[in-house]
């Protein structure tokens, strides 16, 4: 690990959002989801809540992987940094970015700057943890989903906006994405006249295992 010099600590301005970037060269979004939930649980024990955590596609040379961005609306920069640093310490090659502070491989600063920017501007990113995420279980109506979570819009693939009374079978797995500043959940019609999120928790595995 090559720590950068001249660390500038962000003061704990409790009401201003902090967006940190964490890159563990995570190979898949599902792995990143587990890390996101772990971070959420850990920060909760420090009293840091109201997180928004997103995954972003990242690339260094040929190596494509997932980087993460972590936003706290109300929080303490130091405890966020400490928790993320502990998480980062579990990996061999990592990067951690929070405002001016960067710790990790120089190649990953670029991916994390991009991830943090995408998060801050809400232009892209697949959002795992967001206000209301834990309540999106079972089957809810479209209007309930919009009212009880940070999701701004539900978009039916190859279609238009759904009726507010339409039922969404969450499969307990809801991963909206940012697009043009809005948090959008893409859905598709499923059996029984319900909608399901585009991303399924149980995709059909590929026929032959790839190395």
């Amino acid at each position, binding site marked *: 690990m090559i720590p950068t010099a001249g660390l500038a600590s962000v003061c704990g301005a409790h009401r201003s959002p902090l967006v940190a970037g964490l890159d563990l060269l995570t190979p898949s*979004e599902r792995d990143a989801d587990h890390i996101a939930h772990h971070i959420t649980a850990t920060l909760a024990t420090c009293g840091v809540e109201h997180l928004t955590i997103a995954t972003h596609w990242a690339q260094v*040379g*040929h190596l494509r*992987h997932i980087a993460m961005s972590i936003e706290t609306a109300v929080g303490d920069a130091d405890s966020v940094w400490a928790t993320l640093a502990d998480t980062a310490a579990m990996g061999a090659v990592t990067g951690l970015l929070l405002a001016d502070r960067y710790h990790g*491989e120089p190649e990953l600063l670029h991916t994390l700057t991009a991830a943090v920017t995408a998060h801050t501007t809400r232009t892209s990113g697949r959002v795992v943890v967001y206000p209301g995420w834990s309540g999106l279980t079972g089957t809810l109506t479209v209007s309930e989903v919009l009212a009880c979570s940070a999701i701004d819009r539900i978009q039916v693939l190859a279609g238009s906006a759904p009726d507010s009374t339409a039922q969404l079978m969450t499969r307990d797995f809801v991963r909206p994405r940012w697009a043009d500043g809005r948090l959008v959940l*893409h859905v598709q*019609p499923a*059996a029984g006249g319900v909608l399901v999120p585009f991303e399924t928790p149980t995709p059909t595995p590929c026929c032959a295992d*790839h190395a």
Partner: protein
Amino acid sequence: MTHDHGHGAHEHRHPHSDGHTHDEGPLAPELDVTVDDGDLDPTQLGRRTFLRAAGLLGAGALTTSVLSTVAAHPVAAAPAAASTGRSPRGGYKWLAGDHHIHTQYSPDAQYRVIDHVRHANAYGLDWMVITDQGGVQHSKIGVEKVNPDIVAARGEVSDTLVFQGLEWNIPAAEHGTVFVHPGRNEVSVLKQFENSYDGVVAGATANTPANEALAVTGLHFLSDAVHRRDVRDALMLANHPARKGIDSPHEIRGWRDAEPSIAIGMEGAPGHQAAGIPVPYGLGSGRGFYDNSPDPAASFANYPLEAYRTFGGFDWMTATVGGLWDSLLAEGKPWWITANSDSHQVWGDTSQRGPGSDFPTNGFFNDPVHITAPQLTNGDFWPGFYSRTHVGADNFSYAAVMNGLRAGRVWVDHGALLESLDVRLRAGGDEVPLGGVLTARRGTAVTLTIRIQPAHLPNWSQFLPKLTHVDVIRGAVTGPVSDRDTFTTAGTRVVQTYDVSGRTDTIELSYPLGALDDGFYVRLRGSDGNRLAPGLGGAAVDPAGPVMDVVGDADPWNDL
């Protein structure tokens, strides 16, 4: 839905790294390639592993790993499509087939070769390709062991042509059918191909430029084998291309342009057509098993989410008017579509794999045994049962089938929607069949003639399918694209829809395409009309096209 083909984003998500910037002082040990891995401490080794995986190890590493794609023989000229002469007197022999079938020699399939051949024959197939999955066991065992089974089946069933092929794990991409004309060397050529160029066998599945180049080299190998007359002919088609978003447009163009006589097309509709049959009658999954999401490690970033789903059972690349397939045709180069079973385990079957099977050791599953409960969670049909690829052949022979495929004399259907289809383009005194290229003086009147025999016998779900619509799709030929990752073309749209509901007699249509000005292509599409909606390109492009399939509720017989 039936398809044939005719004649004449979401922001970029790949920030590229500039590479590391260690430019002061001596080279760190992990960067010094003269230092062995074993001499590095764990932290250094971890960093070296990362840089190696990223292709950043060593100066200029990003640029040095591309293999040469210069062919070792004179590059075959692009085929002059079909001959520009007339169809043979009496027309072509239209032979129904399937180029994507898995047997007990695939790690996730079940049946004997003879099971598939007899079922295919019973369901009316004239030709079929056994395509067991490339892999460690197959490359050492299955590729050889399947051959006597195929030879025996050829002897047992003389009116279905049985090719040996394999399902190639295309380096850096999806799967592909690769097959060869039968002969003395059919096994040795396939075995050498698999051992050198299969992504799983060669450890070359990752999405890197080197692996993309390896795929192209594999195609050159097949072409070389034909030139050397090790085999009489060889073909490759891309299977379920949009399923995981990992066949990028530039890779498809790369295969086509590297060996246009070998890499000739892709599945327009995937197999696994029973996968969406609703619970409790079926698995209740996604039709075609198209239920993936973009994979950050491998998917082409600019494909929309819709690309990962089927439309009327068809792959998005083919289903979208003005989409990827049309963007290839608009370049004026051949690229054909097929429809196959991808048969692994059949819906409703009353058998299962033989007990005591040990695929990792033996390279096959033991012969199936009877069970009482019909297997309703299997996602496939027998070859010929639902999906068919029809090829216009000069005669009933292996060579003629391969030539017909290459020439693009191909149309596909589901559920035996049509009995026959004859489409010709006419201008001046000249005419060409499907796949043909017609050349005429500017200003000559061009006409498309269509002759359809609707089904007159029930299909394999015991009902008589009813063709209700025939669409003519026309696109401008605008020449090679500058951005090889283009997957749309603005110049293509549905220009005519015929309502043929209720027609049981021969349907003859003649569509005037106007005076020849700039180059164009036409293709045909038809359906039973049960599920239609404006296409993804909008109603002006496609007012009534296939609908995105409902996950868990996609009875394929209700949507032909």
